[in-house]
């Protein structure tokens, strides 16, 4: 078993950047960066802070910079890295709370600023009447790729524009906006337009493609942003083809005979069988 050096950038609340600290960890087959961090906290330094939840690339909590590249700690096996020294830093382009824990509030603020949900004129159709908004597989394919985002912030750390402009919306919110713009059930394009085409919007993306290179889920934010730009240009020229979101009544109702689905009720527990 090879001996690895985990070189970790430490930040303490109140004291700021306290520099790099080395930890020696024995590597084992299949070991991830996250396993190494657990090992350090259990055996060497209980004060080391990082964030994780699911350990399997789903929750998006454990983004950090591994050897100068933003990645998920749980998704990165130490054997896939060359060399025996692994440097770890908190995600770039975010403030640091402690050690490897970035403060992702700006990510979520920007995300909610682009209205990342279906915007419809017939807002009373919230599904409470038991009908659904039908969509063809082809329509789904227009945005399916961009729904895989886990909001881990890895693309935001990779983005060179965010490195110089902290107010730039960034890859993740722009992709979230395109995901809804491209949804056939949505009609919120105009509502999002001001923000997307604003001074910190899409015009600051120049396809460095670092976000797509870094994304652990294959979301390809750079593709979404370029498609978003095309839509904004077509809209400016007045030639953006867009059918209005189909009305709820325009599609087949949920049940076969046009009946409403029965309201969902929690079944009452069975009577005591002994009686």
């Amino acid at each position, binding site marked *: 078993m090879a001996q690895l050096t985990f070189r970790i950038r430490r930040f303490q609340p109140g004291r700021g950047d306290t520099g790099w600290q080395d930890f020696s960890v024995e590597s084992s087959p299949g070991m991830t960066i996250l396993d190494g961090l657990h090992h350090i906290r259990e055996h060497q330094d209980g004060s080391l802070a990082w964030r994780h939840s699911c350990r399997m690339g789903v929750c998006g909590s454990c983004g950090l910079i591994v050897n100068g590249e933003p990645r998920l700690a749980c998704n990165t096996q130490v054997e896939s890295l060359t060399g025996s020294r692994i440097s770890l830093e908190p995600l770039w382009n975010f403030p640091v709370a402690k050690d490897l824990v970035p403060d992702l509030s700006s990510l979520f603020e920007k995300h909610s600023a682009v209205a990342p949900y279906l915007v419809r004129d017939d807002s009373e159709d919230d599904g409470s009447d038991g009908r659904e908004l039908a969509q063809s597989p082809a329509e789904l394919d227009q945005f399916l790729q961009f729904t895989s985002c886990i909001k881990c912030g890895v693309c935001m750390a990779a983005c060179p524009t965010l490195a*110089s402009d902290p107010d730039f919306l960034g890859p993740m919110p722009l992709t979230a906006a395109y995901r809804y713009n491209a949804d056939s059930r949505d009609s919120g394009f105009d509502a999002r*337009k001001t923000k997307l085409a*604003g*001074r910190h*919007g899409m*015009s600051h993306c120049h396809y460095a493609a670092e976000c797509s290179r870094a994304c652990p889920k294959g979301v390809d934010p750079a593709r979404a942003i370029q498609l978003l730009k095309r839509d904004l*240009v077509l809209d*400016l020229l007045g030639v953006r083809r867009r059918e209005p979101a189909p009305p709820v009544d325009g599609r087949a109702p949920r049940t076969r005979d046009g009946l409403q689905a029965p309201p969902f009720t929690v079944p009452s527990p069975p009577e005591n069988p002994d009686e």
Partner: protein
Amino acid sequence: MRETAYWLINIACAIVILVLLGVHMGVMHLDAILARLVGTVPEPLAWENMVNRGKSTTQVVLYIVLLGTALFHGFYGLRTMLLEFFSSDRAARVITAGCVTAGGVLFVTGTAVTVVFALNGAG
């Protein structure tokens, strides 16, 4: 959607520049290669040839178009970069005004020189 419009004009300028500056570069700087392809070409920096170019209406119009598009493209790009470093609204106004002024001064200078030379020749 002002930023989208600026961006689109920027791209349109890029296409114009690609053609005009490509020709300009080929004629002015790669004359040796051009000579090999088409036989002899006039020495671009010689006084008489420069005067001939400066007196031709087509040339003068193309010069001014190239100057205008290149300045818009250049200062739009510079503004984009500066806005990333200074992102407050006040800074943005100063940067935009600065870019418009600098671009305007250069455009007026270049156009005036070209037009005066075409009409009067060297003073």
